[in-house]
């Protein structure tokens, strides 16, 4: 029986008040497990990103709970929530959000530096993870000197450097060509996903569905079901 990494119950989020109130997510409940790669798919505006933000401790839901390893993350104080994100979650953003004025290694080391780790120690670990993503030789370069695929791998290295239990990917292939996108996700599947880690990925890209363990579909803010396409295949 796989261990539950994230347990979302009745998640609801609306924006605006009164007649202007718009529901982004309505009463969404699901579990995500360690050792699985869960995709959240759906058309634009279906609430994927809002849901992702709520389960990762970024956007407070109007209703519902998010339990991570037995803790209701939305009962935590702002500082505790920030610490939770820093230590437990690795983020890979759609546009990478790498600092162009820092070297690739420094970008990767940022989560460790935010954890107040020693600079040299953080750099050593960043170099290790750059080696994992095959970019050790690019460590001294600024990210702008790297291709889109390489930048995405740097973002992945930054996300895994603090050894998080949960990884959140937001449209990781949106800025990449099809082949590079597949390579990246394949790499994530092989080298980033472990039995001790859960990956939740929001994507539009049907070309990478084959790498998912489960696919959760969203429409109009509701979860319309999950498919075990990968496992059943």
């Amino acid at each position, binding site marked *: 029986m796989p261990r539950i990494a994230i347990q979302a119950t009745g998640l609801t989020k609306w924006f605006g008040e009164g007649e202007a109130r718009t529901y982004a997510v309505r009463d969404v409940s699901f579990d995500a497990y360690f050792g699985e790669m869960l995709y959240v798919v759906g058309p634009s505006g279906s609430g994927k990103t809002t849901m*992702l*933000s709520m389960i990762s401790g970024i956007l407070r839901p109007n209703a519902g709970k998010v339990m991570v390893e037995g803790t209701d993350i939305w009962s935590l104080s702002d500082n505790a929530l*920030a610490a939770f994100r820093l230590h437990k979650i690795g983020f890979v953003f759609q546009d990478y*959000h790498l600092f162009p004025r*820092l070297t690739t290694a420094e970008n990767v080391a940022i989560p460790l530096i935010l954890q107040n780790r020693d600079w040299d120690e953080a750099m050593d670990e960043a170099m290790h993870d750059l080696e994992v993503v095959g970019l050790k030789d690019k460590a001294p370069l600024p990210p702008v000197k790297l291709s889109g695929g390489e930048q995405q791998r740097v973002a992945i290295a930054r996300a895994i450097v603090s050894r998080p239990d949960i990884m959140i990917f937001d449209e990781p292939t949106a800025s990449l060509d099809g082949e590079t996108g597949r390579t990246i996700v394949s790499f994530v599947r092989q080298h980033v996903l472990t039995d001790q880690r859960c990956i939740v990925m929001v994507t539009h890209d049907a070309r990478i569905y084959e790498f998912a363990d489960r696919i959760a579909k969203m429409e109009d803010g509701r979860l319309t079901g999950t498919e075990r396409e990968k496992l059943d295949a």
Partner: protein
Amino acid sequence: MPGNLKIAYKLLANDRARFAALLLGITFAVFLMIAVTSMFSGTLKRASATVINLGGSIWVMDPSIQTVANTIPLPDYVLDEVRSIPGVKFAVPVYAGSALLKLRDGTYQSANIVGLDDASLFGRPMLISGHIEDIFAENAFIAVKDSEFYKLENPTIGTDFEINDHRGVIVGIAKVASSGLFGVPTLYTTYYRAVYYIPNMRFTISYILVEPKTPADVAAIKRQVAAAGYLALTRDEFITKISDFYKYQTGIGVNLMLMTVISFIIGLSISGQTFYTFILENVERFGALKAIGAKGRELVFMILFQAAFVSATGFGIGVGLCSMVIWLARVYLPDYAAIMTFPNLGLAFGMVVVIAAVSSYVGVRKVLTIEPFDIFRG
């Protein structure tokens, strides 16, 4: 240095164009602010040169006096009256006036003449050549070797000149703490020779210099002098009075203050604008840091550090640049009156702190209002 501050430093310093623009803005503002206030301080110091050089704990004068240069002679009986005040250790007359000298080559040169009390020579300058007792010799004058000395044709001991159809002879060369404001050389002689050689009004005492028995006697002496219808000021009070005159009654102070404010506004505009665009360029990445787990106060600290670093560096460069310019100016223009004082530096530093605070406030507001969710939404 903590890692997050190192990151903040690298974000700032590696953006060379913007870092240079920030430094330039602050350096330029600091340079202007310090240069302007230093010139003003130099001018004020020179305006009080006679007071500084003569010393004297208490100066007795006519109440209408605004600056040391515009003397209103006192009757002789005032000296007697002051000497009779309990608490006065001694009181001496001093003459401060100007005269036209005819130099050896036939040219005329205006000069300040200071006449020291014959009995005590109180306020005498430090001689670098000659003997002070020679001041009692016939026609004796002591020339002050300041930035105006060359205007007396660089005299040596024995050099003579004419003063109001009297012969004058240089018997000593002295140095003083401060040169005068009006660009004329200074000669010291005895009080009675000064009064005798230079045409005067009925009264001849310019000031009475008083030494109290104890510091506690100062207040009583001032009261007694006031009761006699005259004004007694301590040396520092007199210097302040002279400074206030130039600051508030000549327009110089207001003009220089305006220049300082303009420098501040220029610095604030350049630095504020540049820092704002710097933050604006990185705001999404700061948002990403927030999403990753950076606390708001950590980001604020990073921004404050960046603002403080660039301000301190700009301040240091500005001060260094200003020192160099003043030094260079003095090499080529010995009369150049500019001195950097701690209050000047403090004022410039305070304004730089304001520039840094305003610049970083804008950045901090921007970073604090960015929501990590916005980063996800793109």
